[in-house]
């Protein structure tokens, strides 16, 4: 065996029906099946979840921190992109 370490997986848990899966952490596993079992044992011990997603970490592509200025700062002075100019009727909750 040339590869001694199992690959890293990112774990996403849905805490309740209707909510999104949220990233909770990562773990090592040989394949997807083991990753789901490990996620069950590591991340759902205290009733945290009703559904588990795992994805190998190498498949996650991240933005480069060096691009932060170019990526995010231009949005700072464009408040008109927030839909705050509408009046929300009183009967609409959870907006």
């Amino acid at each position, binding site marked *: *065996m040339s590869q001694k370490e*199992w690959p890293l997986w990112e774990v996403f848990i849905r805490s309740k029906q209707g909510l999104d899966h949220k990233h909770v952490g990562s*773990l*090592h*596993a*040989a394949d997807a*099946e*083991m990753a789901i*079992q*490990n996620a*069950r*044992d*590591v991340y759902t*011990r205290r009733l945290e979840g009703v559904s588990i997603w795992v994805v190998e970490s190498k498949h996650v592509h991240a933005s480069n921190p060096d691009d932060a200025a170019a990526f995010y700062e231009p949005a700072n002075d464009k408040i008109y992109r927030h839909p705050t100019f509408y009046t929300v009727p009183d009967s609409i909750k959870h907006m």
Partner: protein
Amino acid sequence: MQDTHTILLPEVTPEVRQQLFDYVLQLADTSLILAHRLSEWCGHGPILEQDLAMANISLDLLGEARSYYQYAAELEGQGRTEDDLAYLRSAVQYRNPLLVEQPNGDFAHTIVRQFLYDAFHYHLLVQLQTGPDRQLAAIAEKSVKEAAYHVKWSAEWVIRLGDGTDESRRRVETAINALWRYQGELTTPTPTEQALQAVGFVPGYAAIQQQIDQHVARVFEEATLAVPQGVFAQKGGKTGRHSEHLGYLLTELQYMQRAYPGMKW
């Protein structure tokens, strides 16, 4: 360790009640001893995730053991508590089968011991769920969900080790050769179990053995492992004749209560 919940006692003759006490104690001891063995892995697992998996299974079994000990204490009705039954009985009074007291060995030994037990445990609980003893049925109904996961976990590892590297295969085959002899005791009824089977409180073991055989054959085939044939079944634990390993295990398990009677923390 004190919980308050209603325990349903069956309406049976004193003789059957005594037999039921012995049988429930056997179930309790079995879960407790295997839980203790798995807890010995805590902090020593091959990787963090499996260390946690074994600790989780250990805690599942400990919870199940407590339910049985509480029920046994009620059946006995002599004022003994679950703690008295777990901590203040000697090795010859323990009624667990030999399989679960076998030492952890390497990871393959632990996995094979676990899988052989899980296959039995799961199929037994499925039957107990619909048995005439409502208290046992309730405990089984809670525990069967845990056991279903245990057997899925250990089967997955048998397959990985068997169909893995040369070394993992060699190790899992060595473990199967060492532990297979203890499998037969699980479904060989003691006189107590036979008496309870006659009145329907313990399920028939022939049907369970068939389900276990099919389950094991399916997993071993996927693991490309051979199912041993014609191995002499080593028995004795369920009637109190244990291997030397149990004494050492109990020494550690019971040390605090023996050294400091009645201690709480």
